[in-house]
């Protein structure tokens, strides 16, 4: 196993900001991991993610992607090898599903036959019938379907690394569960490396092979879900997990309780 992403003493401070958005962060992620990054809004998780594909430049430290320092790689070139999915999805409204998915393959100069085959393959992977969906515009899809296309588009050129920023955040709870299961499936089949930002504790614990808990720009704990639940590293993580457990226990208790309380 080789290293997919490595941060070495990385900090980021935005112009005019009083403190670092990301503060002296070091970690490494092995190839094939699905790492969830958990934190409240403003904790620096999105900034951290966007530094991986050079949408944001670090103020200090160095970042390696597949053992290459990204400051010496042309960002445009780097990004073509990294899939990117965001909460707002960002499908191009003026392009059909086929053309949306084909964006990166087209940039890379694939042949038309190869692109068509890949589009159909990806549509099947995200459980949308190719014949039915290929020529639709994004406005003709539901939110869940749109994010499936967003995922397919990011996977199109078979990147070894995928970055996802709260991809299911705007999708209703029922569809979210289905999409989470599909994502786990895709990860297991593809053995790609996934970095998945979320503020949903359940989602982080369910999807992550390891979970990175962030607060105020630093990493509080970076470990497997069971370790984080069993041995929280500090008070912050403990409180987070306790609140999650209590919420869960409360919901379960109501569901299995002796009588209706209404």
């Amino acid at each position: 196993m080789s290293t997919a992403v490595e941060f070495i003493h990385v900090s980021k401070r935005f112009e005019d900001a009083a403190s670092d958005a990301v503060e002296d962060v070091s970690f490494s992620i092995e190839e094939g991991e699905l790492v969830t990054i958990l934190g409240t809004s403003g904790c620096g998780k999105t900034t951290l993610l966007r530094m991986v594909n050079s949408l944001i430049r670090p103020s200090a430290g160095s970042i390696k992607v597949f053992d290459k320092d990204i400051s010496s790689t042309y960002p445009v070139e780097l990004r073509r090898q990294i899939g990117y999915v965001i909460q707002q999805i960002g499908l191009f409204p003026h392009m059909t599903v086929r053309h949306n998915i084909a964006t990166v393959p087209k940039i890379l100069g694939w042949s038309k036959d190869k692109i068509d085959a890949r589009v159909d393959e990806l549509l099947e992977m995200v459980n949308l019938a190719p014949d039915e969906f290929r020529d639709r515009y994004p406005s003709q899809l539901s939110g869940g379907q749109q994010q499936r296309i967003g995922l397919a588009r990011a996977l199109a050129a078979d990147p070894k690394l995928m970055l996802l920023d709260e991809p299911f955040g705007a999708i209703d709870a029922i569809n979210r569960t289905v999409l989470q299961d599909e994502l786990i499936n895709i990860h297991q089949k593809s053995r790609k490396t996934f970095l998945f930002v979320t503020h949903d504790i359940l989602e982080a614990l369910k999807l992550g092979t390891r979970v990175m808990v962030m607060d105020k720009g630093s990493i509080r704990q970076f470990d497997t879900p069971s370790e984080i639940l069993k041995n929280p590293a500090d008070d912050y993580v403990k409180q987070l997990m306790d609140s999650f457990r209590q919420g869960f226990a409360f919901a379960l208790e109501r569901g299995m309780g002796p009588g209706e309380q209404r």
Partner: protein
Amino acid sequence: MQPYINYFSSHMQDYLGMVGQHLLLSFISVTLAVVIGVPFGILTTRSKKASRFITTVFSTLRIIPSLAILVLLIPVMGIGMKPALVALTVLAIPPVLINTALGFRQVEDFMVEVARAMGMDERTVFLKVKLPLAFPYIMTGIKTAASEIIASATLAAYIGSGGLGVLIYNGISMMKTEYLLIGGVSVAVLTIVCNLLLGSAQKKVLRYRA
């Protein structure tokens, strides 16, 4: 009815000539307005300073009535088609410029970010994402400009640029109602037809919206 039949039977060539001139005058000024207005509109979205400067210049120009511009241009450019084109272009630029700026501003930041994140260089982001998404707005600007120009081109006959305005001015000086009506209705019909054509083109561009 007789005067109208008489006019068309004896002056058909003149009439078609005037319609042609009117359309040519309008077409050239709208084209010039697009060539100038679109780049400047894009520029306003790039920097605040540029935006303030450009908006001030063009809104000042817009305040001056087009007839005044026409007259003011006579000492500089004489009479004929050239000063008319300048005046009409000045009139047509603001709607094109404003709508272009609006079009580019409404492109969501995340859309541009996703495009970059997929490995598009800035040129491709512009051509494949920003421009197509702004295009329907630019079309609205062109539509507005075209309607204004076709109507205003009538005034340009005043300084000898030709077009359907000639017929109207002749009608006034010769007290011929049929000239006035033929001229006026023709301008109205041209405006409506042009609006419909551009409107349907716009609808085609926007077919992706459900």
